[in-house]
């Protein structure tokens, strides 16, 4: 029974993560709303953490309006081959980081990524994607 419960919990967790990602993908289709959030919060440049679909979607939504310095990905690559988008690996990113905001896009790993980044990025400079799209910054 415990094993069954664990399986159900894991299933529910994965489903909610997928659902959260889907919602964010959808909300980023409204470029005007995203840009308006950036302006409201006076964000003019940031790094995007995560070379998955969410990271790319965020890049596409904002790159015309603000300076996306680079996407940062632990594999130094994107899930889709898009040569025009700059990508950095973790080491390179850590070496060049100079106090800008970093937006974490993989919902499933917000907490461990934030913990990792906190080693050299001030906490108030780390944003989760949901927070950027609609929370209090």
């Amino acid at each position, binding site marked *: 029974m415990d094993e069954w419960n664990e399986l159900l919990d894991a299933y529910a967790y994965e489903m909610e993560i997928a659902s*959260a990602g889907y919602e964010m993908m959808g909300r980023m289709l409204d470029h005007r709303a995203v840009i308006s959030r950036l302006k409201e919060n006076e964000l003019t440049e940031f790094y995007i953490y995560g070379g998955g679909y969410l990271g790319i979607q965020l890049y596409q939504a904002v790159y015309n309006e603000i300076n996306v310095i680079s996407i940062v990905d632990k594999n130094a690559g994107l899930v889709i081959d898009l040569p025009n988008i700059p990508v950095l690996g973790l080491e390179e990113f850590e070496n060049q980081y100079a106090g800008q905001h970093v937006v974490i896009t993989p919902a499933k790993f*917000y907490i461990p990524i934030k913990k990792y980044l906190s080693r050299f990025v001030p906490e108030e400079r780390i944003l989760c994607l949901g927070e950027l799209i*609609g929370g209090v910054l």
Partner: protein
Amino acid sequence: MMFYIAYTGFELTEVSGIWTKILGQAYAFEKKLGEVYCTALSNQMAYLMHGNDVVEKEAAVTRKDYLTVILKWLKKYQTDRTYIRYPFADKWFIELLKYQKDHGIRTVLEIPTYPYDGELAYGRVKVEDAYYRKMVSEYVDFIASYSKYDTIWGRKCITLVNGIDAAKYKVKRKNDHVNRITLIAVSSSMTFWNGFERIIEGMKIYKQSNGEYDVFLKLVGKGADEKYYKKLAADYGLENQVEFCGFLTGKALDDVYSQSDVAVNSLGSYKKKLEVGASLKGAEYCARGIPIVCGYTDIRFPEGCPFVLQVENNSSPLKIGDIIAFYEKVSAQDGYEEKIHDYAVKYLNWDYIMQRVIDYLK
């Protein structure tokens, strides 16, 4: 320390008024019970708030994440009392209740809508809730709801009504126009249970009967049924009489109220199989000193209340002639606006409404 645990986001303030309501309740608690922090879940982040100030925030993508954060904060702030706005039952919610019981945290559970089956679409949430709601009463001693039930799930239930901070609302003054009436209907969601099509259909019938009054309607808010209302207004040739104002706040909203004579509350409760209620909007109308038309029994007002016209709770078109007669009768009394507002100050303020909950949590 007391926590008000909510599962909603404060970004809804302007849209739904839910956060305004939570703040109003929390403030009433704080006056009698000491500092109150509120938790909110918004855009995959958990927030701990004091009023509108963020005390702490943490990522919380799933319900399990949110539970983890809440438990951490309950411990950190040595919380001994909570007031929870019920979000529907699931495993993580039951774990929160269990934790509270195991740690001697006294709690009151607010169920905003009861019965709420009509609000749940078939799907995962409905299935989870059906399974877990049976466990809620095991961990909760006291329930507060906006229903007329003395007990819910075998637990004693305090009846609440939606309240406001009445002093914050500007009282509208009587318009001096003749043979003209303007209705206002405000909705945060403009959804099917507003039933505002009944007003538009009523206006069509009144117009066809060559009624003496020019009748206007101001619809404030945005939502899924707005298109439907626009189509009805166009189909009935009422485009010049029905105005779609969109979301309004502050002075813009005050101005629209000042141009209106009668406010219309929900007319579609029958669609949710609800007979009674106490909507926030109704309280706001009252605080603004405007006569109210309502499609359900609003338990905050006594039967025969002179400034509330209760109409049938069904799909029939609104009888505009009845509304005009009602308005003329109410507005014939000197200072009727102040009298309506005073009622809100006396009976619809959160301090008054939450007193029984406060007594329990003391």
